[in-house]
């Protein structure tokens, strides 16, 4: 359930985040304002508060979702995804802007349209540049998905709480197991993002430190 929450949220956050980033970099001023406003709002509200807002909103009309559980799960996904979208849009915006303008000029000078230059020159490099930051976003979302237990979605922490309510003496042991599980899910991704990507980015002349 934790993985489902995380992957769904990241995927939705990715799509919405890229759209927002495009609005902010290429859009007319109206779209830029909307995207900027969105980003400021979702970065400024604590996740727990977002969860309660979406939970309450969806529960008040949970009929269309089908079930109480479905409504709460959806609230969890939406809160995580829409907040992640705000952070991801910032990430993508930064990496789109950091693609060398000289290369865009070169692309246009050989007759590529703005669309072609964006699709074939800017995006491939921007996505690669954003990968290290994106693994960080994965780590943040998978860990923050534990907060969804607060609105009663049975992810790892919520399941663990069922155990330690029954066996209060084992609380520390159980919570340590939970910590290890989260670590196992984050470590390989952040490690890959940190090291292997660094090497590949350097090969492409896209920086990445020493």
């Amino acid at each position, binding site marked *: 359930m934790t993985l489902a929450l995380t992957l769904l949220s990241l995927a939705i956050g990715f799509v919405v985040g890229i759209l927002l980033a495009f609005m902010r970099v290429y859009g007319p001023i109206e779209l830029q304002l909307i995207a900027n406003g969105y980003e400021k709002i979702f970065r400024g509200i604590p996740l727990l508060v977002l969860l309660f807002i979406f939970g309450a909103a969806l529960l008040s009309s949970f009929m269309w979702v089908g079930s109480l559980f479905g409504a709460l799960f959806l609230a969890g996904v939406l809160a995580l995804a829409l907040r992640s979208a705000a952070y991801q849009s910032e990430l993508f915006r930064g990496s789109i802007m950091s693609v*060398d303008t*000289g*290369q865009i*000029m*070169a*692309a*246009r*000078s*050989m*007759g*590529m*349209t703005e669309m*072609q230059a964006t699709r*074939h*020159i800017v995006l*491939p*490099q921007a996505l*690669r540049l954003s990968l290290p930051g994106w693994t960080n976003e994965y780590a943040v979302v998978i860990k923050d998905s534990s907060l969804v237990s607060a609105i009663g979605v049975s992810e790892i922490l919520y399941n663990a709480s069922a155990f330690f309510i029954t066996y209060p003496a084992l609380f520390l042991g159980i919570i340590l197991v939970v910590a290890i599980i989260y670590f196992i899910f984050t470590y390989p991704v952040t490690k890959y993002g940190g090291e292997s990507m660094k090497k590949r980015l*350097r*090969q*492409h*002349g*896209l920086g990445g430190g020493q």
Partner: protein
Amino acid sequence: MTKVIEVRDIWQSYDDLEVLKGISFDVNEGEVKVVFGPSGSGKSTLLRVINMLTPPDRGEVLLRGESITDPNANLSKLRARIGFVFQNFNLFAHLRAIDNVSIGPRLVLGLDKEEAHEIAFQALEKVRMNDWSHHYPAELSGGQQQRIGIARSIAMSPDVILFDEPTSALDPELIGEVLQVMLDIAKEGTTMIVVTHEMGFARAVSDEMIFMDHGVIVETGTPQHFFQNPQSERAIDFLHKLEVLYGQAEAEIELE
């Protein structure tokens, strides 16, 4: 002689600063024009105006009689016929050499992948980079990168290639290999406009040299004219400065 490029009374300013003040000249088929002058004289801006990377405030540029400065012009179509070689190479960092060269024929000229690769490979052979076709730009020296930059232009079979100080970002020992490639393609009859201070190159291949200062063309003439008998005070002064810096403008580069 057919005119490939006609530049008609170009004016361009950034804020209060007038960079180009009424520039006009023609470039004929197969001609090599060298544009030189002190920094800030507007040479690079002029090149950017010719392919509309910088639209001019006033004036007109014609490519084989077709206006590229016309607001209704199909810019992408016309730009595909004007090659541009940048001072800082501006290769696509995420693409191997061969893909840097083939992406234009593929996306802009609409060739299929194999044809585009074939053309790209021939272009890389011309600049003697065919052994490096699978390297990324970051793995290559400046001279090698610039040769790929030139191949990227050649592959589009443009009507004219514009060179914007192609050797000034290079270490001295790498300049020769790039100039040699430029000499080769000049000899093949490529129409070129070259902004450069490499007077050896100018002497070897240019048909006409254009001396610019403060946004105007001060003097034009053959290399012989400039090296033996320059007329304007400013040209004499500037050529003297170049001489002090680089030595006599001999034809150091041998034509094969």
